[in-house]
């Protein structure tokens, strides 16, 4: 029997073509291939997700929803989504319906400029605004389990979608302030975020490999200290590390910084909840 018939050959070529097309379609996601920054004044030549710098074991833990410790918050958030609360006896789903549809993309857009308070807000703030305005319920404490759960749930609806932050228009001023914060030396150790995350990503700081300090995986599970933290909490851990005063929850400084971080990670896929060493 002849193996290489014209028909077989055509089939093989079609297969190869499909593979090639597939490879061309899959854009780099900062995990094994870096994302190229679109902005000309971007400080990084290559944008890498924190995922890229983790061990095989940690990556596998993130990739497997059953093994990812932060998924307990996702499950809790799923319950809150349809739980009625407040004076108007509504739940999130009363207004938004199926989260998989209505919340897809939400995790890629924040922080967003919010005209009423004239500042940037993140997903946590947005959830609290909905509670206050539409549900007649008390806003949750920033740092509460409830808010952590629901923000993990909402952000994960954008899993794999690219971060496309708002930095122009009314956001520009806040973005600039965030950038200044990021590049300013501070704390008793007199170091800026840039010193660890722009200059030395991939290098060891004692036992830990430094990443680019990207925000696309947050809230994320940190193996040390063994809990799921919001982006604000992670930033404060870094500030405490250099012996700087931590930022108040929900403060403008923190939101400005989150705005800058989102721009810095433009084009990275949302990974919430990520697992990091």
């Amino acid at each position, binding site marked *: 029997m002849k193996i290489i018939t014209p028909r077989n050959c055509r089939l093989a070529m079609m297969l190869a073509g499909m593979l090639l097309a597939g490879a061309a379609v899959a854009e780099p996601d900062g995990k094994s291939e870096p994302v190229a920054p679109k902005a000309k004044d971007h400080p990084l030549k290559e944008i890498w997700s924190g995922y890229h710098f983790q061990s095989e074991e940690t990556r596998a833990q993130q990739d497997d929803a059953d093994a990812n410790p932060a998924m307990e918050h996702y499950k809790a958030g799923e319950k809150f989504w349809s739980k009625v609360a407040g004076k108007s006896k509504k739940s999130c789903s009363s207004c938004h319906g199926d989260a998989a549809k209505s919340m897809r993309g939400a995790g890629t857009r924040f922080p967003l400029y919010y005209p009423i308070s004239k500042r940037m807000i993140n997903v946590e703030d947005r959830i609290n605004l909905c509670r206050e305005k539409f549900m007649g319920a008390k806003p949750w*404490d*920033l*740092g*509460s389990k409830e808010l952590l759960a629901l923000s993990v749930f909402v952000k994960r609806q954008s899993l794999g979608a690219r971060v496309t932050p708002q930095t122009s228009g009314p956001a520009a001023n806040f973005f600039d302030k965030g950038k200044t914060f990021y590049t*300013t*030396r*501070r*704390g*008793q*150790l*007199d*170091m800026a975020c840039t*010193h*660890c995350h722009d*200059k*030395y990503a991939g*290098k*060891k*700081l*004692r*036992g*830990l490999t430094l990443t680019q300090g990207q925000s696309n995986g947050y809230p994320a599970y*940190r193996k*040390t*200290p063994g*809990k799921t*933290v*919001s982006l*604000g*909490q992670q930033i*404060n*851990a870094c*500030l*405490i*590390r*250099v*012996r*700087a*005063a*931590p*930022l*108040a*929850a*929900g403060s403008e400084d923190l939101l400005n910084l989150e705005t800058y971080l989102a721009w810095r990670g433009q084009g990275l896929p949302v990974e919430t909840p990520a697992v990091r060493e």
Partner: protein
Amino acid sequence: MKFMDRYGALVCAVAVFAAAGALLPLHADAQQKKARLCPPGRVGVVIFKTQKTTGLRPAIEKPLSKKAGDAERGLEAIADTGRGGCLSCHQIAKILPKADESDPEQAKKYGQHGEIGSPLNSVGGRFTAGELRLIVADPQQAFPDADIAMPAYHRVADTVGVHPSCKGRPILSAQEVEDVIAFLKTLK
């Protein structure tokens, strides 16, 4: 936690993350602000001047303390993540034998070396004591063009956002700087 009570320098990543209080929930930020990262006692403004030197590089020729530096205590300050924390960024091959694998604490203290700064293996031969004194006390003065990522260990940080418990305090005392230099001079 004991090391949190120690006065200190670069708090190594692992140590800070492991430390209670490093990741307090955000609503407790008032508490976080009050938490002591720097213990009381080491008050006072540190004044030193970069002196004209006989060599090519800027230096502080005059010792900062009356008592001569002690190399052994210097190594302790270097390895202690709550004080020097130098190993967070630098390697020192000479001390690896101290990282006894059978003792996890020793192994962690002496065996984990960072890659941010270059290895310190031969600095004792390449720099004078005066040059090392300035590098440790205020590396931005020692390497003015480098935007150096190394903390200034004996300059009272006049920077932004210093944690309230650390305001007005240097990372290492004058005596500790002398001890560290005594150890660095043994690296040839």
